[in-house]
C-alpha cells in the first residue's frame, strides 16, 4: 500500500529522461486543436512569435520549479507547509488541487464536445464521461508509473498528428505570413496570455518531481520536453496561418480539424475522423496526469485512502462534465481556468521562489 510521504520509494520512481514525455504529454492536450484562433485574435499573423516567446518563458518557469523543489526537498504540499505553516499551507495546497481537478474536468468536457460536434451528435455526455472515468480510475490507481507510460504514447501520437499538418505547407499561401512583425510588441505580448492554456502542465512538476530519480539531472530533460512542445506548437501555428487567412480563421472553431478535412488518404476520405480518434490518447494522457496530481495532492494532505480519494475525484469529474452542458459555457470556463493557470504559473511560482529564498535566508 502507498504511504503518505513526499519521499516515494524506488519502486515508484522513474528515470530522469522520462520527464521529456511527462512535460510534453501534460502540455499538449485539447488546446492544440484550437489555440491558433485565440492567439490570432490578439496578434494576427505575427502571433507565431508569441508561441516561441511563451515556450521561452516556460523554460525559465521550469528552472524556477526545479529550484523550489530541490531547495525545499519535497513536493508542493511539504513546501507549502514549511513556508506558510500547516494551516495556511494546506489551504493553499487544496486550492491548487482544486485547480488541477477543475482543469481536468474542463479538458474532459471540451474533448467530449469535439466528439459530439465532429462525430456523434447524439453521444450522451453522461455515459461517455462515466466510461472514461472508469478508464481514468484504472490508470490513476495504477500509480504514477502507469500514468507516465500513457504519457509516452501520447507523445508518439501527438508528434505523428502534428506531422499530418504537412498539407498546409504544400497547399497554403506563404503571403499570409507577410508583412512580418506588422503588429506592435504589445500585441504580441498580449497573445501570450491565451497561448498559456496550451502550455499549462509544467506546474505538475511541483507534484511529481519527487517521483523522479536524480532530480537534478532531469532538469535538462524537462527543458527538452518543453522545447519539443514549442516545436510542435510552432509547426502547427505556421501550418494554420499558411492555410487559412486571418478573417477566415476567426470563423473556424477547431482550425486543425478543418485542415485535416482536405487530407484524402486512399483508405479514408476524411482524415479528421482519424485525427479526432487518435487525439483521444493525447487528451487522456493530459487528463490522467492532472487527475493523478489532484488525487496525489488530496491524498497527501487528507490521510484518507488513495482509492477513496480517486473515486471521489472521478465522481466529481463526471458530475462536473454533466453540469456544463452548453458550448458557450465550455469556452467561457476554458478561458477562465486558463487564466487561473496563467496566474498560477507566471505569478505564483516566481512568488513562491522569492518567498522561499527569503525564508531560507531568514532560517540561516
Amino acid at each position: 500500500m502507498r504511504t503518505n510521504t513526499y519521499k516515494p520509494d524506488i519502486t515508484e520512481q522513474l528515470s530522469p529522461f522520462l520527464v521529456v514525455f511527462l512535460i510534453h504529454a501534460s502540455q499538449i492536450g485539447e488546446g492544440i486543436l484550437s489555440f491558433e484562433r485565440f492567439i490570432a485574435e490578439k496578434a494576427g499573423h505575427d502571433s507565431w512569435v508569441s508561441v516561441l516567446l511563451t515556450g521561452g518563458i516556460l523554460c525559465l518557469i521550469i528552472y524556477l520549479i526545479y529550484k523550489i523543489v530541490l531547495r525545499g526537498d519535497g513536493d508542493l504540499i511539504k513546501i507549502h507547509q514549511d513556508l506558510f505553516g500547516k494551516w495556511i499551507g494546506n489551504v493553499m495546497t487544496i486550492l491548487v488541487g482544486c485547480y488541477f481537478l477543475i482543469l481536468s474536468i474542463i479538458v474532459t468536457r471540451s474533448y467530449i464536445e469535439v466528439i459530439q460536434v465532429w462525430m456523434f451528435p447524439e453521444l450522451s455526455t453522461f455515459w461517455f464521461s462515466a466510461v472514461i472515468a472508469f478508464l481514468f480510475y484504472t490508470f490513476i490507481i495504477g500509480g504514477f508509473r502507469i500514468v507516465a507510460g500513457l504519457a509516452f504514447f501520447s507523445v508518439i501520437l501527438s508528434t505523428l498528428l502534428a506531422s499530418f499538418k504537412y498539407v498546409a505547407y504544400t497547399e497554403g499561401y506563404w503571403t499570409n505570413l507577410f508583412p512580418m512583425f506588422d503588429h506592435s510588441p504589445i500585441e504580441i505580448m498580449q497573445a501570450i496570455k491565451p497561448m498559456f492554456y496550451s502550455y499549462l502542465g509544467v506546474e505538475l512538476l511541483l507534484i511529481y518531481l519527487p517521483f523522479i530519480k536524480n532530480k537534478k539531472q532531469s532538469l535538462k530533460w524537462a527543458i527538452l520536453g518543453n522545447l519539443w512542445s514549442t516545436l510542435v506548437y510552432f509547426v502547427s501555428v505556421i501550418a494554420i496561418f499558411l492555410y487559412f487567412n486571418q478573417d477566415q480563421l476567426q470563423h473556424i472553431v477547431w482550425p486543425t480539424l478543418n485542415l485535416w478535412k482536405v487530407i484524402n488518404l486512399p483508405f479514408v476520405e476524411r482524415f479528421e475522423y482519424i485525427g479526432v480518434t487518435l487525439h483521444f490518447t493525447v487528451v487522456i494522457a493530459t487528463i490522467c496526469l492532472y487527475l493523478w496530481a489532484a488525487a496525489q495532492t488530496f491524498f497527501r494532505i487528507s490521510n484518507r485512502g488513495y482509492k477513496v480519494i480517486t473515486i471521489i475525484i472521478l465522481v466529481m469529474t463526471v458530475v462536473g462534465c454533466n453540469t456544463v452542458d452548453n458550448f458557450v459555457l465550455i469556452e467561457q470556463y476554458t478561458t477562465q481556468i486558463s487564466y487561473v493557470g496563467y496566474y498560477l504559473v507566471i505569478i505564483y511560482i516566481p512568488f513562491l521562489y522569492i518567498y522561499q529564498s527569503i525564508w531560507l535566508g531568514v532560517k540561516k
Partner: protein
Amino acid sequence: MRILCSLFMLMFLVGCVSSKIIEDIQLVQINGYDLTAQEQMIRGTISIPQYGSSEQANEVNNIEYHAESQTAQDIRTKIEAETPYPVESGKTLGVLFGRGLAEKGIGKLIEGLSENQDFGRNLFLCVVDGKAETLLTQEFETQDTIAKYVVDLIQTNQEKNFPKTNFHELLYSFHGEGMDFFLPFLSHTDKDVKVSGLALFKEDKLVDTIPFKEVFIFKALYENSDDANYQFFWAEKDTYLTIKSISSNVKVKQLKDNKMSITINMIGIITETLSLNIDQLNEVKKLERALAVDISTKGQALIKKLQEQDIDPLRLGDYARSQTRNWDYQAWQTSYPNMEIKVNTNFKISQSNIGK
C-alpha cells in the same frame, strides 16, 4: 474481474449513439439549388445513386428529389419526407447553384455548408447556366452517376486550363479581405455538360462570367501552373498556333500606393508550327515577343474588366496586404477600381516538337 468490468462498460458505449447501416441510408452525391419561380424560396434538388441489387440489374440510376424552402436544412427535412431511408450527405461530391440564385446571392447557403461537419473541403461548387435542376434531371450518355460525371469534368479541367477551385478556396476568398471568389461555370446541352468559363462573384452575388478562352489568361494571372493550352493568333504570319505552357509563374508587386505590377514568367512548347519554319534564333525570339505582348495585353484587358466591376478574384488585395505595413482595407477598396495595374510577360519557348 477488471477486464470483465471494462468489457461491460464498453457495451454501454455501443448504446450511446445510434448506428447507421450503409444499406439503410441514402448517400447524397450532388446537391443543386435554384431560385423558385416566384423568387421567394430556394428549390433544392438532390441526386442519389441507386445501385442495382442483383448482377443483372447493377446499372446505376440516379433518383432526384426536390423540395422548396427558405433554408438548406429545411429543404433536407422536406426531402427526407419523400425518401424511404434517411439521407446522409457525408459523401457529397459537389454542389450546383442555378444562375438565378447565384445572382441573388449564395452567402447563406455557403455558410450553412461550411458549418456542417459532414461536408468535406474538397467539395466542388459550380454555377450552372440556367437551372441546376434541369442539369441534374437530364439523362446524359455516361457510365457514371451524374455527380461523378460533373466532378470528374471539373477535376480534369483543373489540372489543365482551369484555376484551382474547391470549397476551401471558396471560403478562403469569401471570408478574407481583399479578395472575391469565383466558381466554374457549367453549361449543358441535351447530351453533355461542359465547363464554359468562370463565374465571378462580388461578395456572394454573381456579377460576371469569363468565357472559356480567357480562362488561360486568368489562370496565368491567378496562380502558378504547369499544364495549360492556349491558342494564339500570330498577326505577323497571319496564322493560328497553339502553345502549351509547361511552367507558369506569377509575381505580384505593389510598386506605389496606386500602382501594381504583375509579372508572368512562362515556359512553353509550341505545336502546329510545321509551316512556319521557325528554326532561326531570331524567328523564335520574335514569336516569344509576340506571345508575351499578346498575353500581357489580354491580361491587362481582363484586369481592366475586373476593376470596372470592382471585383478582385485574382486576390490582388491580399498581395497588397502582404507587402504593406498597416494595410488599410478601406483605403484599398476605394483605390482599387482606379489602380494602375501593369502586366509584364516573359515567354520562353523551351522545346519544339517531334516534327521537322
